[in-house]
C-alpha cells in the first residue's frame, strides 16, 4: 500500500454560536443596582479580534467611588453579622449560577478579551465557579482556620484586577472577601469590563444584599480613587509592577493592609533527564496559554545544553501545530492580543530582541485575520541573560530560550531576575525536583507540569512579583483582622 489517496484532513470551522445578552450601555453597579455615573463619562470596550465596539461602559469618577464605598460600608454591618452559614449559602448560589450561565459568560469573556473559547470554557469559568464553591466552605469555619484567634472582617475592601483573566480574577478577589464577611468595591480592567458587569447581574439574580459588592468600571484614575478613599480598609491589586509600586507609595502612610500580585518573568527549567515530550507540552502551555497574557507565564526557558538542539526542534514542530485565529472557534489555540497598546509593546520587544542579536523562530504560516490585534506565537534562541527580552516582562506569546550546563548554573540564571512569581522544573529524578524547587525564588513552583491552578492552593509571588497569597487558607488571612482570643 502506498500513501497515495491520503485525504488531507483538517478541521472545519467550529464557531461557538451562542451569544450572551449584551447591553449597548452599562452603568456602574452600586448598592445592588446599575446606575448612571456621576461623572457622566463613559468609554467603549472593543472586541480585540475584530476591532468592533461591543458596548459602552460608564467611567467612575471620585464621586462615584465615594458613593460605592459608602454603599459597601453601609452594607457591611449587616453582612458581617449575618450567620456565617448564610453567607456561605450566598457564595454557593453565586457558584451555581456561574455554572448555569457558564457558556454565555465564556463567550463574553472571549469576545471582550480575545482569549480562545476553549480556554474561557475549560479554564476561566470552571475555576471562577470553583473559587466561590471553595470559599462557601470556609465562611463558617474561619475560627478553625486560625486557631486561638477571633477572626473579624476588615470592612470595605478595594480590589483592582487585570485584563488577562477578568472573571477569574474577580472571583479570586471577591470570593474570599465575602467569605470573611467583608464588602467589596471592585474595579475591572478598562479593556475587559464586561464579565465583571455580568457577574454583577449574577449577584442580582441570587439576591445578594445591595452594597455587598459594588463594581466600578473605569481607567487608572478610578483605581487611584479607590486606593485613596479613606473608607477603604484593605486593598488587593493584581496587575503591573509599576502600578503596584504606585499603590504601595500611596498607602505608605496609612494603616491599610495591601496585597499585590504583579508581573513575572518565570523560568521553566528542563533537565536532560526529563520526559522530553511532556516537557515540550509544558513549555507550550507555559508560554502560549492565553497568548502569553499570563503573569506566571514561563517566559524564560532554560534547557540543559546537551539536549537543546532536539528540544528546540521539537518545540518548533509543536509550535507549528498551534491554531491561531478566531477566538470563538472551538479549535483555536491562540487568540487575539488583548489591546492595540499591548500589541505595540510586544512588537517593540520582539524588535528589540532581534536588534540585540537573538534569533526569532516564527513558523506558523497561516494568514492572520486582517482586522483586530494579532501576534504569532514565537520564540527566540541565541538569547543571552543580559538581553532585554530575557529580563523584561513581555506579556505576549514570546519565549526566550537559553541554556545551562549544571543545576547550579540553572538556579543562578533562573533566580537572576527582579521577579519571583512562578517557576517550572522538568526532570524525572525526584531528588533533583526537591533540590531545585527549594532553591528557586518563586511563589509557585510547578514540577513536571505548569499552569496548574486550584482554589485550595495559594498563589502569589515574592520579590518584584508582589506579596500576599490568594486561594487556600493563606488567601483568607489578608481579609481578616485576627485578634488573639486571650486578649
Amino acid at each position, binding site marked *: 500500500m502506498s500513501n497515495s489517496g491520503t*485525504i488531507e484532513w483538517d478541521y*472545519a470551522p467550529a464557531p461557538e454560536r451562542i451569544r450572551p445578552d449584551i447591553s449597548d450601555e452599562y452603568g456602574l453597579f452600586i448598592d445592588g443596582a446599575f446606575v448612571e455615573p456621576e461623572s457622566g463619562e463613559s468609554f467603549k470596550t472593543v472586541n480585540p479580534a475584530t476591532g468592533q465596539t461591543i458596548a459602552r461602559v460608564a467611567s467612575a469618577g471620585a464621586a462615584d467611588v465615594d458613593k460605592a464605598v459608602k454603599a459597601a460600608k453601609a452594607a457591611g454591618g449587616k453582612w458581617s453579622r449575618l450567620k456565617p452559614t448564610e453567607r456561605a449559602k450566598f457564595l454557593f448560589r453565586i457558584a451555581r449560577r456561574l455554572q448555569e450561565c457558564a457558556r454565555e459568560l465564556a463567550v463574553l469573556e472571549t469576545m471582550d478579551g480575545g482569549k480562545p473559547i476553549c480556554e474561557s470554557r475549560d479554564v476561566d469559568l470552571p475555576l471562577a465557579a470553583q473559587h466561590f464553591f471553595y470559599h462557601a466552605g470556609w465562611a463558617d469555619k474561619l475560627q478553625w482556620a486560625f486557631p486561638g484567634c477571633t477572626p473579624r472582617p476588615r470592612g470595605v475592601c478595594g480590589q483592582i484586577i487585570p485584563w488577562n483573566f477578568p472573571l477569574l480574577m474577580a472571583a479570586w478577589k471577591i470570593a474570599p472577601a465575602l467569605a470573611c464577611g467583608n464588602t467589596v468595591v471592585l474595579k475591572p480592567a478598562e479593556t475587559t469590563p464586561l464579565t465583571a458587569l455580568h457577574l454583577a447581574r449574577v449577584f442580582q439574580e441570587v439576591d445578594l444584599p445591595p452594597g455587598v459588592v459594588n463594581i466600578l468600571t473605569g481607567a487608572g484614575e478610578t483605581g487611584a480613587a479607590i486606593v485613596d478613599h479613606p473608607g477603604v480598609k484593605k486593598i488587593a491589586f493584581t496587575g503591573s509592577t509599576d502600578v503596584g509600586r504606585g499603590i504601595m507609595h500611596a498607602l505608605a502612610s496609612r494603616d491599610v493592609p495591601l496585597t499585590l500580585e504583579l508581573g513575572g518573568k518565570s523560568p521553566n527549567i528542563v533537565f536532560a*533527564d526529563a520526559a522530553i515530550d511532556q516537557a515540550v*507540552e509544558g513549555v507550550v502551555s507555559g508560554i502560549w496559554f492565553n497568548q502569553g497574557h499570563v503573569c506566571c507565564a514561563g517566559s524564560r526557558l532554560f534547557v540543559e545544553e546537551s539536549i537543546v538542539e532536539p528540544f528546540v526542534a521539537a518545540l518548533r514542530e509543536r509550535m507549528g501545530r498551534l491554531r491561531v485565529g478566531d477566538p470563538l472557534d*472551538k*479549535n483555536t489555540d491562540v487568540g487575539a492580543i488583548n489591546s492595540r497598546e499591548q500589541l505595540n509593546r510586544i512588537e517593540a520587544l520582539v524588535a528589540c530582541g532581534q536588534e540585540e542579536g537573538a534569533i526569532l523562530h516564527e513558523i506558523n504560516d497561516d494568514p492572520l485575520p486582517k482586522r483586530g490585534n494579532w501576534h504569532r506565537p514565537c520564540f527566540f534562541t541565541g538569547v543571552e541573560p543580559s538581553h532585554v527580552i530575557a529580563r523584561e516582562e513581555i506579556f505576549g506569546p514570546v519565549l526566550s530560550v537559553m541554556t545551562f550546563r549544571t543545576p547550579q548554573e540553572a538556579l543562578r540564571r533562573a533566580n537572576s531576575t527582579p521577579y519571583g512569581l512562578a517557576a517550572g522544573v522538568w526532570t524525572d529524578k525526584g531528588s533533583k525536583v526537591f533540590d531545585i524547587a527549594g532553591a528557586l525564588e518563586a511563589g509557585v513552583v510547578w514540577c513536571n*507540569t505548569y499552569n496548574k491552578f486550584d482554589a485550595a492552593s495559594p498563589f502569589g509571588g515574592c520579590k518584584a512579583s508582589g506579596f500576599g497569597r490568594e486561594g487556600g487558607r493563606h488567601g483568607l488571612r489578608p481579609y481578616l483582622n485576627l485578634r488573639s482570643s486571650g486578649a
Partner: protein
Amino acid sequence: MPTPVDAVMLQQRAAQLGRRSIKTTSKAAALQMAVSMLDLTTLEGADTPGQVRALCARAKAPCPRDLGIDVPPVAAACVYPRLVPAAVEALEGSPVRIASVATAFPSGQSSLDLRLKETQAAVGAGAHEIDMVISRGLFLSGRQRDVVDEIRMVRAAAGDAHLKVILETGELETADNIRRGADCVLEAVASESDLGHGEVFLKTSTGKVSPAATPSSVLILLEAARAHYRSTGIRLGVKPAGGIRRSKQALHLLVMVRETLGPHWLTPALFRIGASSLLDDLVRQLIKLRSGRYASLDEVGIT
C-alpha cells in the same frame, strides 16, 4: 537509557486533543477515513467460518447497499489463524487485507518455537498481516533484551507479511513501561536497513485486557513512532485496539495522529483502528450526517 514518560502532562495532552470540535464536512471525512482504517475484528472462541464470512462481507461493503451511503471498504479483517482460509475465500478479489493474530494470542504463553510456527502457518494460509503479542512475562521480569530478540524472530517468520506488535498496554500498566515496550519494537527493527513505511506497527492491546487503547497509551505509541521517524526517517504504523466502540473515540484518535505525527500519517498504510462494534457507530453517524436522525442498530446490518 529508557525514555521517561510523565503521566501527568501525557494525560493532559491526550485529554486536550479530545476536545477538538470535529463538525460538518470535517466529521464526514473523518468518519469515512476511520472506516477505511478499520481492522474489523472477530477474535472469539466461538468463531466459525460462517461468522468470518459474514464479517468479511461487511468488511468489503461496510454499509448495507439499500442505505445508499458511499462508504469505503475497511482496511483489513482480523481473525484467528485457523480462520484465515475462510477469510481468504471470502475476500478473494477485494482490497481488504487479511490480518491474523498469532504467537499464542492473547497471552503469548507458549514456547517460542510454537509461536514462530503459528506465525508461519498463518502467513502460509494467506494472511497479509500478523498481529503478534509480546511476551509480557519476559518484559516484566526485566528480560527486555529477549523481548527484542523475539520480535525480530517473529518478524523473520512473518516474511513479507506486515507485522503489528501488540504490547498489551493494560498489563504493562505504567507510561514508562509502555514507552519501554514500544522502544523494544523500535530496537528490533533498527537493524533492518530496508524497512519500508508501515511494514511494522505498534499496537496497544489484544482487546482481552482492560484498560486497552486509552488515549494516553495511544499517545505514547504515537510519540515513540515520532521518535523513530525523527531518527531514521521511517514511518512505523500505529494501531490502537480494544475498547474503541464510539465514533467520538475514533475522531479523538485521528486528531491525536494528526497533531502528533502530522496529516500525512492519516492513511490505512500507517494507522489502523482495531475494533469490532465501532463500525456500527461509524455507519450510524454517517447516516445521521445525511439524514439528521440517529439510526437504530437494527438499520446498520450488524453481524
